[in-house]
């Protein structure tokens, strides 16, 4: 349910719209980060009722869009999370499973997904949630006049979606309601099936329902600004919205029509608290836990706060370096690698990767929460991460050797191109925190050690919009390499960021082997998990060899939980997170 804007506080980040709040949080023995528990087992007896107080850590007011199909930033997802619920439960790998508000069935041969709503699923006004509500959710995301920014290319895989999205058809022909509008079953027909369809957050269809009976008369273009979305949204989640104070707080009370476990507390409030104030707010025991990402820099102080238990889970943030290796052919809608690009030599790229000391940077600035990433598939993805790959640990000797072998000989202080011309590498990155700037300066110094003259594009880190404008241009010679980050989606989809046709493959890296791996990972054979794992492992190894993108860092998100909170677990797969939360005291724990 959380969706991130590009400018994540404190880091240069390209972020990803994602559909679940928490990661699977697996920590392996190879982790260099601190070990934090994923759940808080409070054995005290719960008191009846009470008010759960949550802080949303953010420096800007939220926009107030409660509809998960329409919102486009993480803050709105967070502040409305008690009244938002995915239709499906998921496994710890974020694969859909049954038992939630709806059941999920994928039929490879028929190329369909069947969604079956539970019989007792009701909106907070007592009306049943029915098939039409699921169909309308797809329309809200895809309608030509919808303001939703969440429509993805993957949704175009639904039969008839293209015609609907472009306004040529008034309905989506690939959505079938076998028992009619008021039935409980929805069958979605796809052109092609992908193993990613089994995962939450893959973007092939909306994983929410819309209260059609309440919003059918609201024009699509005005839905996001309507009172049905902003003031009185209907929900099938455990809590319903009572009040929203624009940009600053939301309050909720139990939804008496909720299908699952009875909500335990009388009220839930979510208040926006700034980065600068959150530490003191926690020390004053004002909140039971936080939503949003807490700054890594505050971890040493926050972990000492009395009355709180610190939990942690693998972060979805993943930093990397990219190289400008080609361009995007807009006519053919595909990336093209150019052998004449400055960074086309694989040994040059590998040398740059080995020259930086990311282990030390993570240790210095990460407060134990950050570590060097070793492959392009972060540990968030659990078993799909290739543990055997070691990535690019500091090795100046190897970096020099690679550069020498590739013909980048030194002439005085700096190395030259193999044909004897001066070599200056233009490095693009975004303005961020002071620690990020220090890390970037360190990278430049490390590259200097191996004789590479790397300079910031325009002499300094760039303003966010200028940075993205440059990176997203089909072709640009303004930069040779860049530093960015993704907040990865829960679905381990890779082709949309690294594929031949992917516009987000901003380094324009293309090779037959890469395409083959990505196709294999997305193929029907990859429904078999061991085959999928083999392909993922192979691809990670291959991408490290090519060093077209260098994995930089990943880490742990931490959450302080007041010790009066019961049943807190970072695992949201059962969708009953908020329904299960209880309090063991009417006042916050202070010790």
């Amino acid at each position, binding site marked *: 349910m959380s969706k*991130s804007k*590009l*400018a994540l506080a404190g880091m240069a980040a*390209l972020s*990803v*719209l*994602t559909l679940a709040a928490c990661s699977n949080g697996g920590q392996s023995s190879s982790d260099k980060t601190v070990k934090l528990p994923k759940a808080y087992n409070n054995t005290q007896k719960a008191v009846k009722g009470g008010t759960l107080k949550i802080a949303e850590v953010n*420096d*800007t*007011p939220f*926009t*107030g*869009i409660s509809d998960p199909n*329409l919102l*486009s*930033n993480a803050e709105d997802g967070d502040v409305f999370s008690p009244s938002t619920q995915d239709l499906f439960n998921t496994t710890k790998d974020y694969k859909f499973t049954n038992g939630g508000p709806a059941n999920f069935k994928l039929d490879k041969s028929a190329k369909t997904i069947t969604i079956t709503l539970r019989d007792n699923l009701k909106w907070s006004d007592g009306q049943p949630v029915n098939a039409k509500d699921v169909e309308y959710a797809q329309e809200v995301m895809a309608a030509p006049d919808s*303001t939703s*920014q969440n*429509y*993805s*290319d993957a*949704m*175009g895989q639904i039969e008839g979606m293209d015609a609907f*999205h472009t306004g040529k058809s008034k309905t989506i022909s690939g959505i079938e309601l076998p028992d009619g509008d008021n039935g409980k079953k929805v069958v979605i027909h796809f052109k092609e099936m992908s193993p990613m369809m089994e995962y939450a957050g*893959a*973007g092939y269809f909306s994983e929410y329902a819309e209260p059609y009976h309440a919003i059918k008369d609201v024009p699509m273009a005005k839905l*996001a*600004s309507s009172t049905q979305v*902003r003031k009185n949204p209907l929900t099938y989640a455990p809590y319903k919205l*009572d*009040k929203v*104070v*624009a*940009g*600053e*707080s939301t*309050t909720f009370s139990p939804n008496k029509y909720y299908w699952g476990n009875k909500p335990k507390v009388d009220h839930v*409030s979510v*208040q*926006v*608290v*700034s980065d*600068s*104030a959150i530490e*003191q*707010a926690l*020390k*004053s025991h*004002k909140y039971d836990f936080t939503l949003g990402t807490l700054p890594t820099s505050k971890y040493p102080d926050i972990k000492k706060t009395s009355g709180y238990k610190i939990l942690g889970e693998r972060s979805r943030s993943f930093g990397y370096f990219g190289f400008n290796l080609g361009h995007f052919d807009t006519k053919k809608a595909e990336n093209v690698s150019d052998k004449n690009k400055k960074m086309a030599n694989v040994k040059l790229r590998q040398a740059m990767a080995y020259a930086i000391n990311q282990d030390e940077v993570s240790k210095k600035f990460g407060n134990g929460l950050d570590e060097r990433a070793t492959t392009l598939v972060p540990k968030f993805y659990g078993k799909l991460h290739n543990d055997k790959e070691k990535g690019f640990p500091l090795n100046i000797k190897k970096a020099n050797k690679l550069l020498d072998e590739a013909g980048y000989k030194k002439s005085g202080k700096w190395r030259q191109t193999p044909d004897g011309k001066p070599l200056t590498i233009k490095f693009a990155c975004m303005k961020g925190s002071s620690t990020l700037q220090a890390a970037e300066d360190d990278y430049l110094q490390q590259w200097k050690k191996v004789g590479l003259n790397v300079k910031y594009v325009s002499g300094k880190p760039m303003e966010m*919009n200028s940075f*993205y*404008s440059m990176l*997203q241009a089909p072709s640009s010679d303004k930069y040779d390499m860049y530093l960015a980050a*993704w*907040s990865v*989606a829960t679905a381990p*989809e890779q082709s*949309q960021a690294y594929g031949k046709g*992917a516009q*987000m493959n901003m380094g324009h890296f293309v090779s037959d082997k890469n395409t083959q791996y990505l196709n294999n990972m997305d193929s029907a054979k990859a429904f078999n998990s061991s085959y999928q794992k083999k392909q993922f492992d192979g691809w990670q190894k291959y991408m490290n060899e090519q060093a077209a993108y260098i994995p930089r860092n990943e880490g742990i998100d931490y959450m302080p939980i007041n010790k009066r909170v019961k049943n807190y677990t970072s695992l949201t797969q059962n969708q009953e997170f908020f329904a299960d939360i209880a309090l063991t005291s009417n006042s916050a724990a202070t010790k």
Partner: protein
Amino acid sequence: MWKTILRRVLIIIPEVFVLSILVFLLAKAMPGDPFTGSINPHTSLAHIHHLMKINGLYDPWYQQYWNWLVHLFHGDLGMSYEYQEPVTRIVGERAINTLWLAVFATVLTYAIGLPVGLYAGRHQNSRGDHAIRMYTYVTYAIPFFVILVMGLWIFGYLLGWFPTTGSIGTNVGSGFPAVISRLQHIILPGILQALFGLVGIVQYLRSEVIDATHSDYVRTARSKGVPVKDVFKHHVFRNSLLPITATAGYSITGLLGGSIYTETVFSYPGMGLLFVSAINYRDYTVITALVLMYGVLSMLGTLLSDIIMAAVDPRIRIE
């Protein structure tokens, strides 16, 4: 004078027109657009182009400007791309928050700043003056942000005297309880803002009073035997206040400008944060509306300052 005021108001109209074109063009000249800030690997760039198209962002600038102008005359400032609701509604919500805080802080700033400044000037080199100077130097030396965080920590969290976040309590109804809650929420940020804001007024006023004390007309009054108290009351204070009065008109722009620092630290949704986020996310409709509004307010502020000056200084006449 009324004719002059009317003429000045009429001149503002073409000025606003030129300003609106400049603002519109400059906003569009910034790199980026309102939608690419939300990209992710799943994003359909074709969909981004579609959103750009249906919002008219690919139209020539003059056509976009014309559309905007037509809507403006219908009282419609457009839809915010970021907030996905009418700009008038967002600005209205934020302006009310900002006004509450700004009016309180401004009144407090002048209510404390004027007497303190006059006192310091009147009693130059006294213990009180030294204390006031020390306060102004120290306060000026500390970044405003730090003052806010320290104030929040001490009076909000440590002592628990004031609410620490937002503009109103989470579960407060409407009517009188809402007013009380709003007042409670503006006291701490308002006082901190005023304690910082009055430094300039105090220092300025103090030096004005000291200058005036040594001027010829004061010496003349004193030599004529006018009591010191009356000299200060009728001559020094009045003349010293003139420069402060001259800028009073401009403060109406400040009333709606908001304070980014105060709003950030107290999570207080006001105009300052709205403006910054609108620029960051290229929310053109909001940027244009706000800059235009500030422009108009500045023009009116200038006029107001002239009128106030004419009212308080008999030597100045608007003709």
